């Protein structure tokens, strides 16, 4: 029974990571109607930046804060320099840019930092087992960090006028311009936020999966599955979906398919959702008359 409870708690901890990345995916999706395949690679690059700062002797939380800000800037720059010129281009162009970004960021990370697996420190340590060994200090700490980030993002979008303007720009760019919102900058801010959230997720998961240039590849798949379960256009749904996938994946890995086949669970979820309920649990069903 303890084993089962532990699997669920561990699932929630990794689910938090998926939830963060899923939220990042949804934020870009809402603004551009495409999934940013490079979200994982961008997060990995951020984590490497944090790693090199920690290696250089900066305190953990200083490196953490600096990385989040730097990642935000990188996200803004990617939108301004790469997405801006193709904003009115057809879908395939966007897909091409996303794949290009994925390859470039991924390989650049490997080229700069090397392909050997690195150990990334966790800021959360404890002298003894927590809650009778049910949960590790890192699981508890990273879940807390994830929840804080998700809450902040929620409060930002719900209660600040900048957050409201970003939502308006995503829902209805034409009307947003008519009330004077600089839609282009709202999209860039969205990319920055998504990159910053991804960076936090990367730094929280790195102590568990170890740091290497392909660290986020599998995680992006789980996050995508989570986003689809919740509804790709619904931020809250994506977060819930991310947690659900984390728990499902862990339980399936422990009791059903074994750890080797865990990733298949994500793929099965993706296909299952697309077949049974393409709009996800909380997604909007878009109908249009022809």
């Amino acid at each position, binding site marked *: 029974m303890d084993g089962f409870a532990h699997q669920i708690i561990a699932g929630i901890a990794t689910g938090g990571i998926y939830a963060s990345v899923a939220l990042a995916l949804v934020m870009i999706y809402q603004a551009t109607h495409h999934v940013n395949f490079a979200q994982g690679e961008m997060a990995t690059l951020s984590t490497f930046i944090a790693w090199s700062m920690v290696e250089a002797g900066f305190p953990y939380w200083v490196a953490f804060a600096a990385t989040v800000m730097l990642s935000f800037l990188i996200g803004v720059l990617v939108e301004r320099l790469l997405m801006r010129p193709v904003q009115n281009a057809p879908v395939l162009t966007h897909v091409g840019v996303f794949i290009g970004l994925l390859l470039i960021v991924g390989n650049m990370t490997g080229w700069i930092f090397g392909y050997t697996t690195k150990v990334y420190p966790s800021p959360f340590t404890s002298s003894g087992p927590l809650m009778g060994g049910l949960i590790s200090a890192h699981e508890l700490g990273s879940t807390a960090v994830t929840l804080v980030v998700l809450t902040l993002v929620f409060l930002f979008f719900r209660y600040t*006028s900048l957050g*409201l*303007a970003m*939502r*308006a720009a995503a*829902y*209805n760019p*034409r*009307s*947003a*311009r*008519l*009330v*004077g*919102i*600089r*839609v282009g900058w709202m999209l860039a801010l969205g990319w920055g936020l998504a990159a910053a959230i991804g960076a936090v997720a990367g730094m929280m998961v790195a102590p568990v999966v170890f740091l290497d240039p392909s660290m986020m590849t599998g995680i992006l798949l789980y996050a995508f599955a989570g986003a689809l379960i919740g509804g790709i256009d619904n931020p809250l749904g994506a977060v819930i979906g991310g947690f659900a996938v984390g728990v499902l994946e862990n339980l399936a890995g422990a009791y059903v398919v074994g750890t080797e086949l865990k990733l298949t669970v994500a793929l099965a979820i993706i296909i299952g959702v697309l077949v049974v309920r393409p709009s996800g649990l909380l997604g909007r069903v878009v109908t249009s008359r022809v």
Partner: protein
Amino acid sequence: MLLEVKGMQAGYGQTHVLHGLDFVVEEGGVTALLGANGAGKTTTLRAICGMVKTEGDVTFLGERITGRATEDIARRGLAHVPDGRGTFMELSVEENFRLGAYVRRDGEVKSDFERMFEWFPRLKQRWRQQAGTLSGGEQQMLAIARALLLRPRLLLLDEPSFGLAPLIVQEIFGIMRRIREESGVGILLVEQNANLALELADRAYLLETGRIVVSGPAAEIREDEAVRRSYLGY
């Protein structure tokens, strides 16, 4: 002069819709832009606020705004209620209000909210409701309120009567009469329902296939049998 348009041309891709328009909108009061379907009324409004590719000179408050970004034109005090209303359907009435006043930094936003409630009491009852669930008339009211919250000098209105029941249209035009009297905003009104528009308007222009064919005081145009028969069809 609030708005001065000279030799304005605009269109979509290879299709030219406007072939050199000249007209002015004076401060305060209502100027009506009339014409049949496809005459270019909607395109004229879009061209003024930079939503389509435009040539010629559009001068707003003494400043040339042709080719400027829509958001910059809006920030100068030019509000537009486009066809399809341009409300944020996914957001609440309250959030639509807040967005309407998004660029304003003065402290009078709250008192302007109260003013909108006076003009559109129905919106107060719907305050927390999602805009997409409002009735057509309420959505049109919300669209006008949202535009007025910018505190514009000029308000462009694209067919506020479109798709609404006659009773609701009467109500909205009644409110617009109040707005004309109680606020100093100039209104450029595009309308298919010429009779209704000419009752409200001070001046009017008649548009036919991208050209202005008649202009003058609204009262005169309303009385002119020939114009009414050949262009307005009543």
